[in-house]
């Protein structure tokens, strides 16, 4: 912990390690982004990519970078950051390292909304809208069911798990109702994929992030750290616990829903990114900003892997994050078990 004091009596506390991790992860994301922009059927060196990004390059390169690859990269960065932020907030609110939206039912809700559209036959815009509506609706239901004089961590977890199990059944049923071609499309969406994402996908998420990220980072982060002390202590310290929890839950659900609308419910980024950030920064409390940077780097890296791992066909990015996340999860369970925390 370092402190900068100004002569006027102002002081700024910060953790050098957390800053370094955040900056490092952001740099990593940018570097991976350059590689992603340069890779594909028309390979370009990093120097060429940079020149094209700053306005140089041929018309073909301009088109490839600005119209084809950049939207995909921006979507990946935003989705990674949004999921990581939401995951950090959830894990902090329910005070459990496994409390990610994949586990608590919000992701399944977004999937249900999207699947309904697939079965009824709608376009990609309707699909995105339905995903947002499904995620928000599920969030409302879980909140209402978990509410008893305020929403507490464990009730939220258990209600979320129950709702997730019901929705998994509903989703499977919807999948059997769709014709095979639509079902294949739906499974692709459910896995989470960045293929063919354009500015229309990145736009809404960008707006949501621009509004909610500052709200959470600036408005709620200090209070969120105090809430980790427990409801009673933080109330005594002047934190409006109930109102803050509602705001944070709403923000996290919105972030997850819009991220799902942009790229499908990419699994485990929300679970893993906060853990990685925490291990790297070794700081107490929610590491919101480092987590976002790690999440963005993670998703871009996974996308790069998904595009490059098999030469004959591209994997959807959700497969890669699922494999990474699943392996990490098993390791986490074993570690938590050994440390006696689970």
């Amino acid at each position, binding site marked *: 912990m370092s402190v900068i004091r100004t002569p006027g009596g102002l002081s700024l506390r910060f953790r050098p390690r957390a800053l370094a991790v955040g900056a490092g992860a952001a740099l990593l994301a940018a570097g991976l982004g350059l590689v992603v922009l340069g890779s594909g059927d028309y390979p370009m060196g990093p120097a060429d990519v940079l020149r094209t990004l700053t306005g140089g390059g041929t018309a073909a390169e301009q088109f490839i970078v600005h119209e084809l690859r950049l939207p995909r990269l921006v979507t990946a960065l935003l989705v990674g950051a949004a999921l990581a932020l939401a995951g950090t907030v959830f894990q902090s609110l329910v005070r*459990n390292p*496994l*409390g*990610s939206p*994949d*586990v608590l039912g919000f992701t399944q809700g977004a999937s249900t909304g999207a699947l309904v559209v697939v079965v009824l036959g709608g376009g990609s815009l309707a699909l995105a809208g339905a995903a947002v509506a499904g995620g928000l609706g599920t969030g409302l239901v879980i909140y209402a*069911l*978990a509410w*008893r004089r305020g929403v*507490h961590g*464990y*009730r939220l*977890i*258990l*209600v979320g*798990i*129950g*709702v*997730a*199990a*019901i929705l*998994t*059944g*509903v989703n*499977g*049923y919807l*999948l*059997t109702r769709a014709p*095979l071609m639509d*079902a*294949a499309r739906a*499974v*692709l969406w*459910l*896995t989470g994929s960045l293929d063919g994402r354009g500015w229309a996908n990145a736009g809404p998420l960008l707006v949501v992030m621009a509004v909610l990220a500052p709200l959470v980072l600036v408005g709620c982060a200090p209070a969120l750290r105090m809430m980790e002390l427990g409801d009673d202590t933080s109330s005594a310290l002047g934190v409006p616990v109930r109102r803050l929890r509602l705001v944070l839950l709403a923000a996290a659900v919105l972030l997850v829903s819009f991220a799902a609308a942009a790229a499908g419910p990419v*699994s*485990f980024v929300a*679970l893993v990114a906060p853990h990685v950030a925490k291990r790297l920064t070794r700081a107490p409390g929610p590491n919101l900003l480092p987590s976002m940077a790690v999440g963005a780097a993670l998703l871009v890296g996974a996308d790069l892997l998904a595009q490059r791992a098999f030469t004959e066909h591209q*994997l*959807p990015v*959700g*497969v890669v994050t*699922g*494999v990474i*996340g*699943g392996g990490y*999860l*098993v390791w986490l*369970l*074993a570690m938590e*078990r050994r440390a*006696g*925390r*689970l």
Partner: protein
Amino acid sequence: MALLGVVLLLSIAVGAKAMPLSDVWSGLLHRDATEYAVVHRMRLPRTVLGLLAGAALGVAGAVMQALTRNPLADPGLLGINAGASAAVATAAAFLGVTAIGGYVWFALLGAAVVTALVYAVGGGRGATPARLALAGAALNATLYSYVSAVMLLDTASLERLRFWTVGSLASADSATVTRVLPFILVGLLVALGAARPLNALALGDDAARALGARPALIRAAVIVAVTLLCGAATAACGPIVFVGLLVPHLVRALTGPDLRWLLPYCAVLAPVLLLGADVLGRVLGRPGELQVGMVTAVLGGPLFLWLVTRGRVAHP
């Protein structure tokens, strides 16, 4: 028992092709009746499979709740059925296994791995119901994302597996039944045999040892039983959630916590629930049907929520 009889009859009688009861009866008994084919080839195996799978899931849920001392233990919620699904999906997509005979072994393998994992996580003293459920949900999410990834890479297995992953009795035929029958019977016998020592184990390891039980042996036996029951049931009907959670809780209200009574009642009442859900799915979903896994999820989900929100298990 009477309830079971009624549901059995209903399950045979109700279907896409409506038949009056008298026809069903003649189809059941007389070889030459026109209804013979429908009843014997389709509805009877389906009913028997429901009977077996229901008993398997109900008993597996009950012994798991006893073993982990955790009211939220359920083979579906804790990811055991999902483990079996993941193994079956692997077999179907990569190893070219398409028949139920091959599924069973892979399902058993998957179930065994996850059962061991769940027990490792949940068997200790520090594990609270909520934490175990959370770990199970996380495992579920992992395994299902793996299954959907497999389905995505291979459209042929998507076509086969998307019906299977919901949990359905529709694929039942006599070959399926005979294939899973031995596994489920052995599993049921082991579980019933373990009822008495498990009762002792509920008092804690030391007390159990003093009463002449061998804790390690019992645990191993129960894990084997759960693996056999869940693996076989999942191989035959796909992952079905909440039966293993719901039935032991309902039965406990009737019999109290003594496993020697609890397990037989579960073995009778769980099929009632499963077949009831199956019949309901066939009635509601006309002219097609709703898969039974969907019906149990929608029926069992609210019970889970009620258990949770009642507050008894909600505290860490």
